[in-house]
Each structure stands twice: as structure tokens, then as C-alpha cells.
């Protein structure tokens, strides 16, 4: 939000900049749409010479099970997102609000799953999950997805908690709210915009996992990403594009819904934390 005055006098420079950047970000995706239907597109043509429906027919065909897996993947990633957020909120609050020994250490440790390439930990994680009896199970996959998701959830919410601090929660407690009531009536609404960002990102990270899903799902849990990646690797641009397009569109729908739900529940406003 910007002061009324400021907005008015802002020159069009920023509008031009915004639209140029957005154009550069969105334009490549147009390519994805074209490639989804491009049967034949040799140099030097700007548009395909021949269109085809091979990709979309395969994807929609019942034998590919793509749509069924898509729904399942959305469900799986939603579960992961919710659990990640539930674990991230207290951790982020601790990192964002309190002072304690080792805070910097924890902040970096949280990043470990982003820093360390997954293959370095794959075997160890796999063995752990087999021991826990979680290998090849739905909940095993959920649990293993938490690993790459938590850093995003925690880091983003930490930023939010650093901004809002604790005073509003204290005020609620003083008015007789129990810690739980404080959480639901004050904390959640205040961090709602941050929850939308963190939730979106966590969903995306989970939804695009394939390595860990292979490893722990063992083929018993098949996600959309697992079906998509072989096509990306094999360079079949039409298949890769069709899958990616559906992947992006489905994610977008989920994210918009998620934002709508969170905001309709907690009010659609930004609050001045600062």
C-alpha cells in the first residue's frame, strides 16, 4: 500500500517497468502453449507448420491415468502444505520473535535441505524410512516432502514474524485469550498474507518433487510430476509441454483457491505490520 499522494505522482516509469518485467516473465510460457500443440515446427518459422493433438489426447486418455494422478497429487501436496505450515508457524515465530542462543545457527540449519543436494542424503533417508516402515506409503511421501518444503515455509514466515512481533498477541492474552485463542483469532489473521506466500511456495515445492517421491513412494505413490519428468528428460517437447501446461494450470488454480480461502477466512486486507 502506498500513500495516496505518492501513488498519484508516481510517473509511468514504474508502470512501464512492471509491464516489461511481467511480459518477460510470462512470454516464455506462451511457448509452452504453442509447443503443446505443435506437431511440426521447423526453422525458421515463427509458428508451427502443423498442429497436432497427440499430447493432449494422450494426457486426457484414460490409460495414461494422468488426470487421476493430478487430483491425487494435488491432494498429497495440500496435505504436505498444511502440515508444513503447521510446523513452520511455531518455528518461524521462535526465529522471528524470540531471542535465544543458537538462533543464527538454527536459521542456517533450516536451510540445509536447500543447500544439500538431495542425492547426498537419499540413501540415508531411504534407509530411515524403510526402518520406520514408511517407505512406499502415502505418509512416507508426505513426511519426506516436508524436508524440502520446511525451509521455504519457515524462512518466509520468519520474515513475517520479525515484522509483526508479539505485541498484538500479548494484547490478546491480556484481554483473556488463551494461547490457542490468541493463535486463531490474532496470530493467524495477522500472518495471513505471509501464509498465502509461504503456502503457495510450499505447495509448488511439494507438487514438483519427483526425486524424493520416487525414492520414498517407491512407485506405490505416483504423482503427476513423476509422470511429467520422463517426458521432459526425453526431450519430447510436445509431451513435456502438455504436461507442464497442465501442471502449471492446475497449480495456478490451487494457488488462487488457496489465496481466496485464506483471505476470505481471515480478511482480505494487508495490515500495517511495520
Amino acid at each position, binding site marked *: 500500500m502506498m500513500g495516496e499522494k505518492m501513488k498519484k505522482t508516481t510517473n509511468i516509469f514504474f508502470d512501464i517497468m512492471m509491464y516489461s518485467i511481467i511480459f518477460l516473465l510470462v512470454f516464455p510460457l506462451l511457448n509452452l502453449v504453442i509447443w503443446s500443440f505443435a506437431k511440426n515446427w521447423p526453422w525458421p518459422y515463427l509458428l508451427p507448420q502443423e498442429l497436432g493433438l497427440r499430447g493432449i489426447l494422450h494426457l486426457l486418455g484414460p490409460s495414461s491415468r494422468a488426470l487421476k494422478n493430478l487430483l491425487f497429487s494435488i491432494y498429497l501436496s495440500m496435505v504436505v502444505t498444511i502440515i508444513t505450515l503447521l510446523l513452520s508457524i511455531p518455528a518461524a515465530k521462535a526465529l522471528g520473535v524470540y531471542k535465544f542462543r543458537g538462533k543464527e545457527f538454527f536459521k542456517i540449519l533450516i536451510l540445509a535441505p536447500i543447500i544439500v543436494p538431495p542425492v547426498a542424503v537419499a540413501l540415508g533417508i531411504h534407509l530411515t524410512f524403510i526402518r520406520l516402515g514408511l517407505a512406499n506409503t502415502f505418509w512416507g511421501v508426505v513426511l519426506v516432502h516436508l524436508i524440502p518444503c520446511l525451509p521455504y515455509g519457515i524462512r518466509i514466515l520468519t520474515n513475517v514474524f520479525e515484522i509483526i512481533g508479539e505485541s498484538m498477541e500479548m494484547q490478546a492474552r491480556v484481554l*483473556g485469550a488463551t494461547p490457542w485463542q490468541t493463535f486463531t483469532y490474532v496470530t493467524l489473521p495477522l500472518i495471513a498474507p505471509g501464509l498465502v506466500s509461504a503456502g503457495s511456495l510450499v505447495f509448488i515445492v511439494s507438487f514438483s518433487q519427483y526425486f524424493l517421491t520416487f525414492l520414498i513412494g517407491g512407485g506405490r505413490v505416483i504423482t503427476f510430476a513423476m509422470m511429467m519428468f520422463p517426458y521432459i528428460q526425453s526431450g519430447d517437447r510436445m509431451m513435456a509441454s502438455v504436461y507442464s501446461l497442465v501442471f502449471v494450470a492446475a497449480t495456478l488454480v490451487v494457488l488462487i483457491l488457496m489465496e481466496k480461502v485464506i483471505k476470505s477466512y481471515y480478511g482480505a486486507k494487508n*495490515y500495517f505490520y511495520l
Partner: protein
Amino acid sequence: MSEILLSGISKDFNNKKVLKGINLSVQEGQMISLLGPSGCGKTTTLKVIAGLIEPDGGDILMKGQSILSTPIEKRGTVIVFQDYLLFPHLTIRQNIGFGLKMAKADKNYREDKVQEMLDLMELKGQEEKYPNQLSGGQKQRVALARALAVEPKVLLLDEPFSNLDLRLRETMREFICSLQKKLNITTILVTHDKEEALMISDKIAVMLEGEIKQFGSPVDLYENPVSEEVANFFGEANYLTGTIEKGYFNSSIGKFQTHINHHSSVRAMIRPEKIEISSQMYKTGIKGTVIKKRYAGDRVHYRILLKDIELKCIAATKEIFHIGQEVSLNINGNNIVFYEG
């Protein structure tokens, strides 16, 4: 048994002592004012009582029981914060009803109560606004309303009227006093308005640099401040040095009768409004010249130059003196407070 007893509460911030062993005992249903210069630790004291800040030392008893380990929301103490802390995501109505909602109060009761508060706080028409759409005084009233709505056992008010105009301040003050008496709410009020404190408190505590320097009745505090510091804090004052001999205080400006008998050299404090000014030259009067004058509506502040000393005086507007005018001052020895020189 006192409702609230602070014993030896201390608190450091960044190794700087902010509270240095606060002792305070408030009886049930009393209205106590806490006065002190900016930064002396008033807000911190309130926060300690409410449980928002954990003291480094000392204990807080409520009805004889230590509440140090009682969770904030179980203490039954409600603060109205100096900076309001209204919930930005809730409307005014929801803000005021928050505490009752948390207590799972009956919905009808809650709505009635909120409505009552809106009326009393003259907030009608604002109920559906969000806090950032309110004026300063309106926010302050919402904060007050939100606290009062839960009818707490102990009410901690941190300069709750500072942004209100005179009339509203009067109204709010009256309302809180009557509510406080009716529900027997123990109240601690932090205020910078000396008059307010004197007028509505059962007792007043003066805090200086993290310590309670005097705790007593309004008259006590105003008329007999235990130290110059307290006296200074409590309003403007004139100081004279001199000696007391045989029931008389001798100073450069004259000799005044007192109750005090022991012989000593002292500093004498005289409040500006205890000095009578007159244009008639009484023979007992002390002669002086008006050198400064400030109109304050219902009274006038003067500076009067005596031989070698300047005195602050405050007088009603019945007779107005002009700068340069020769006046006669009259000081009643009983109105002089003495401190060891």
C-alpha cells in the same frame, strides 16, 4: 489483605536497571495513580503486573498468592496500552467485543455490552471502521472500551486520556470512576495530569528512576512531598534557603511563622498558587515587581522579582497585574514545606 502487592520488583533492560525494587500495595477496589517523569518505568511496572514482562527479581502477590507463574490471561488484569495496540484486522465493534468473545460470553450479552461501550465512548458511527481509519482520540477510546468491556478485576491504565479533549477526558474519567466503584475494580492509573491524579485517586504513587519515592493520599502528596524531587515533580515550586529558629523561618525575603521548632538550616518550598498577590501594599506583604506574565484563561502565571530572587506565582483572573507593576506578596508560613538544607 491487599489485592495487589509488589515486593521488590526489579527489572533490567540491556543491563540497565529500569525497575529498582518496586514495592507497592493496592487494596481491593482502590484507585491508585502512578505518576513519574517520562522513562521512569511506569509502563514497565504495569507490564510486570499484567505478566507481559517477567521481573528479574521480586514477587507479585494477588490476594496473597504469588502470580508470577500465572499465565497472562488468567491474571484477570487488563491493560490499556499507551500505544493502544488495536487489532488491525478487526473492526471497532470486533475489537471492543474481543475479550468477551474470548471468554465465550453469551452472544446477546456481548452485543449489548459492545453497544453500551460504543455509546459511552461516543464512538457511534465508527463501529464498522478499522483502527487505521480512526483519529488518535478515537483509537484511545476504543482501547479503553475494549478493556472495560471485559470488566476486569484489576484495571491497568497507561495514560488512557492523553489524546482526549477536556470534555471527553472528563466524561471518561467520570465513567471509569463510577464503573470502578460499582464493580469494585482495583485500578492503577498512569497519568501525567497531576490534577487528574489528585482528583480521582484514593492514593498516589510517585515514581522516579525506577523507584517509588512516595505513596500516599493526594493531599499528602501535594502538601507534603517527602523530597524536593517529589515536590518538583508534582508541580511548580519556589525554593528559598534559610534557617529555622524558634518557630520562625528566616529567609532573604522575610520571616515566616512555622510549626517546626528544631533549629536547622533548610530549603523551603512554596507552591506558586500559595502565594497571594495583591496590588494593595499590605504592611505584612513582601514587595515585588511583576516581570513576566502568562495568560492561562482561568488564571495567570506571573514571575515576580523580589530583591534578589524571582518567584513564580499563579493567581486568579479577578485582578490582573501588568508587567512592571509593583505588587505585594503574602505567604502563609503553614504553606511552606521544609527540607533539610
